[in-house]
């Protein structure tokens, strides 16, 4: 029989596939448009446009992301149990720690003053071999820079958020937006931005100083504004700096399958 951690990862993949379909469905609705923004004071020749989302992402996306992360987290815990001695399996789990709890300062004391965290960590890996313990410690997110989307950090953050806190909050975001102004079926102007644009973000600023404000007022009524871009859905998670793309789960799962789980499997007892 396939080991349970692989079954869990397969199930996470199923949720991820469904998640991608759901995001595709949402993107096809093109739930965004440009809205005329406030004119900067004293610059009546400038026309600004901001992004508005007319429909929030379906809550189902959040539920699917939660199920996906839960299965990844479970796969790691199942592995941790299999890596532990039979007598210690009741307390075994895969610890994921953000703080460098094992790091010692020049004085030989622990840098992080959190004995509870160390106790929890030690209890979770108590039944593992010394090699396995070292491997688990090496994989910890605290060994990697905070801004790197470390796979374990992603799993922990999403699973914790989903399990105990709340359904994960979702925000639509447009990547690589282009706004264009059209009149009588012909393009007038366009502007592209390469940054991520959330609801209310400025998409473009057009300078009409070459024509009189009165003429611009007339022209404006016949102008069609189009917005294009790649629609993403970001999760708002307390533990993570800034919103995280839901599809970050995809490289996370791939990394678990290809790197983390195969290395840990070597330590199964």
């Amino acid at each position, binding site marked *: *029989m*396939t080991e*349970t951690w692989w*079954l*869990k990862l*397969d*199930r996470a993949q199923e949720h991820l596939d469904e998640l991608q379909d759901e995001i595709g469905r949402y993107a096809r609705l093109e739930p965004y448009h440009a809205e005329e923004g406030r004119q900067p004071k004293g610059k009546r020749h400038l026309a600004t446009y901001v992004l508005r989302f007319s429909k929030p992402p379906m*809550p189902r996306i*959040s*539920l699917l992301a*939660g*199920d996906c992360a*839960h*299965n990844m*987290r*479970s796969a790691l*815990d*199942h592995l*941790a*149990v299999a890596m532990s001695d039979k007598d210690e*399996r*009741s307390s*075994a*789990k895969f610890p994921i720690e953000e703080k460098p709890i094992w790091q010692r300062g020049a004085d030989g004391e622990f840098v992080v003053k959190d004995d509870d965290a160390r106790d929890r960590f030690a209890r979770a890996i108590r039944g593992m071999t010394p090699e396995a313990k070292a491997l688990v410690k090496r994989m910890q997110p605290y060994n990697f820079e905070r801004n790197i989307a470390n796979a374990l950090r992603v799993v922990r953050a999403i699973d*914790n958020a*989903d*399990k*105990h*806190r*709340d*359904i994960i909050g979702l925000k639509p975001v447009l990547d690589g937006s282009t706004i264009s102004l059209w009149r009588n079926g012909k393009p007038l102007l366009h502007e592209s931005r390469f940054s991520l644009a959330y609801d209310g973000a400025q998409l473009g600023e057009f300078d009409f100083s070459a024509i009189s404000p009165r003429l611009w007022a007339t022209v404006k009524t016949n102008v069609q504004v189009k917005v294009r871009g790649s629609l993403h859905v970001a999760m708002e998670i307390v533990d993570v700096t800034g919103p995280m793309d839901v599809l970050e789960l995809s490289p996370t799962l791939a990394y678990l399958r290809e790197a983390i789980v195969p290395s840990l499997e070597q330590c199964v007892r």
Partner: protein
Amino acid sequence: MSLALDLTRSEAKISRATEHLEALKREMATTYEKTGPFKIWFSPIDPQSGWCQVFLVPEPQKPRFGIVVGDLVHNLRSALDYIVTALVDATKGITLASCHQFPVFIDRGRFVEKVGDPGNASLGKGCIKGIGQGFGLIEQMQPYHRKPDPRLDPLWLVYRFSNADKHREIAELANVPGGKIDIRFNGIAVEVKEVNEVRNWTPKTHLLIREIRFDPPCAYNMRAVGPLNVGVSFYVPKWGAEPYCSVNFLTLSEMCEHVRMVVDAFKLL
């Protein structure tokens, strides 16, 4: 004063759990239509005595079904935990911590020791630390109020299955055959022993259902006719002091409904 808790997120999780239950029923029906959970095996006829044994042999089960049960209970567990999240949000002066979750106990003494006694204390401790309003209702919902066996309480089943699934094992599928199978053959049966009571049978082993004596000791074209009733249940094995625990489709459905009832009770607070 009414708390007016917003528990729409708990409700979304319960809906997701129900979705998993319906998917499970559909998938199992499709699988069983293709290949039943059992096949019939006839032992060779003993040339001296003429006896032949008829067995039901369990087909290997897809562990996938147990994985879906894992997702189902995970969502129910989250629905319960979100109640505590909502209570924390509604309580001034406390912030949500990782220790916060919905307590589930089958022993009142343990509940009082770990969480507190709403009769004596105004605020909960441990996993409901700082929660005052709702503390009494949390206590009323505890499985230890169920007589005679608190282990049959749906909340306890959610707790047991979600813990097992998250850390250790996937729920195993047990198919229990029921009813009578019609056995046909070309031969002369002079004696038939029906097996009406089965003892010490486990769902993974062959099950003797009938013994037939042929005289002369030969028969041809032996086959089983007609449908077999199958009772489907999922179980998690013994864990520490906790005995084996099983649920069937009806119980899974009751678990969803019970959690919905718990959520509704908190909405009235």
